[in-house]
């Protein structure tokens, strides 16, 4: 982590330079440089074990990179004295297994960070939660426990929970992979709405249909490297990278 204190010339919503990460002798990410432009939907695709999820988790420092820099707007998250908690509050994340808090009501899941991070009072937070839950079609479920909801509903609550913080960037880590097929489309619909509404999104996904239709750019990762990054059209219709062609022939 070399100390460059000057913000890059053209601030992207999220900018990653020279990011590397290894677990012991196993290198997961090799010198990744990528940016997520403000308002764009960037899909990360690639075979399992290619490092997509690790890269995503580095973006809000749930995984600590070994080297490289991450900039959120004008804030360097990898600086030695960076306020990581404050940065995370500006980045929403949606997980494969939803990770709702099972001991709290749906509403409290959404208000928890509003009251305990943003210091909002309970009533104000409640209003925001109900509005966000309504956006994902679940305001009637505010008093339920997460376990009383289907997987698709839980994931939509998780999206509402992240959106309630009004994040600058949303990260989706295989948000539909754990869902039964018939529940996937509701979650994808919410994600499409977000994308078309101008939210800046980085999406790790196996849903090639979603990547093709909703993404502004698609990044293909293999062996911890960023192998290709281009428009969905280029990636899916005119793929040249041999590993990408091989991958697409397997998943399409």
């Amino acid at each position, binding site marked *: 982590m070399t100390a460059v204190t000057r913000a890059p010339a053209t601030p992207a919503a999220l900018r990653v330079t020279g990011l590397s990460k290894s677990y012991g002798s196993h290198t997961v990410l090799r010198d990744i440089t990528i940016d997520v432009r403000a308002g764009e939907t960037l899909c990360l695709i690639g075979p399992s074990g290619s490092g997509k999820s690790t890269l995503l*988790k580095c973006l*809000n420092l*749930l995984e600590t990179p070994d080297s490289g820099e991450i900039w959120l707007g004008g804030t360097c998250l990898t600086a030695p004295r960076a306020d990581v*908690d*404050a940065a*995370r*509050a*500006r*980045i*929403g*994340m949606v*997980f*494969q*297994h*939803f*990770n*709702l*808090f*099972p*001991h709290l009501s749906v509403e409290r899941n959404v208000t*928890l*960070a509003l009251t*305990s*991070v943003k210091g909002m009072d309970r009533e104000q937070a409640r209003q925001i939660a109900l509005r966000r839950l309504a956006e994902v079609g679940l305001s*009637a*479920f505010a*008093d*339920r*426990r997460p*376990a*009383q*909801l*289907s*997987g*698709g*509903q*839980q*994931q939509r609550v*998780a999206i509402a*929970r*992240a959106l309630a*913080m009004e994040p600058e960037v949303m990260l989706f880590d295989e948000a539909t*992979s*754990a*869902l*039964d097929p*018939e*529940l996937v489309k509701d979650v994808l619909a919410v994600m499409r709405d977000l994308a078309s509404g101008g939210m800046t999104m980085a999406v790790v996904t196996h849903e090639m249909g979603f990547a093709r239709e909703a993404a502004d750019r698609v990044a293909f990762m293999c062996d911890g490297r960023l192998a290709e990054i281009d428009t969905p059209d280029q990636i899916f219709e005119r793929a040249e990278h041999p590993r990408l062609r091989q991958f697409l022939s397997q998943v399409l």
Partner: protein
Amino acid sequence: MAPSTPQDLASNALVNTFFNWDLILQTFPRLITEGLLNTIVIAIGAIVVGIVIALLAAMLLLSNRWWIRLPARLYVDIFRGLPVIITVMLVGVGLPAAGFRPFGTDPFGYAILAIGIISGAYTAEIFRSGIQSVDPGQLQAARSLGLSYLKAMRLVVVPQGIRRVLPAMAGQFVKDIKESSLVYLLGLAAGQRELYFIAQEEVARTYNSSPLIAAGLCYLCLTIPLTYFMNHLDKRLREGPKPGNPLAIADPHPQTPVPATAGEKA
């Protein structure tokens, strides 16, 4: 009903030694008016001290850094490994003798401290195992929302971890109630006597063990309901609100017939 045969004599002596109802009934008023309250005070005090120490120790035990874990590890190993009587004597007699008298000469405070320290060592391990059993994704989700480590632990991880270990906690609470009797070793003033102390005084006076049976019944009246209460609490938390609760049945979106656990495999 004068005893006639030697067998009758022997069995009457046996019954009389343990179940002399006159003595039992005679001991009960003092057990209930004085002993029960003091036992409860010592036990609750020790449980509270134990939980506070245990929460702190459990957090240390969960650290990635060995030098943070080390003091907690030593504490747990030592006070789980020592006989209870040694700890009680060290704290209740040793501390005051060494000039460390936070509770003056009142044995109550030392008893609570000693039993709390022992309880904390056991409870720390119970908490640690409970907290460790919580899915790491819970901490990740909380931190991804901007919660600090301590807030995430306090609001998200620890409450879930502790719910899972309620039955083990019940066992620990029962032990704390029973061990409150060890305050006997430290001597008590009139008005401070707890169940065992009162019973033992009666035994010494009458040379009959029935008062101990009376005290034992009082302990059981505390420990057995407590165990059942904790198990009930555990069941409630596991199963959520009672099935009679309309919230659990009414489905505002009846088009979602998929079980709530759908997608949690994978």
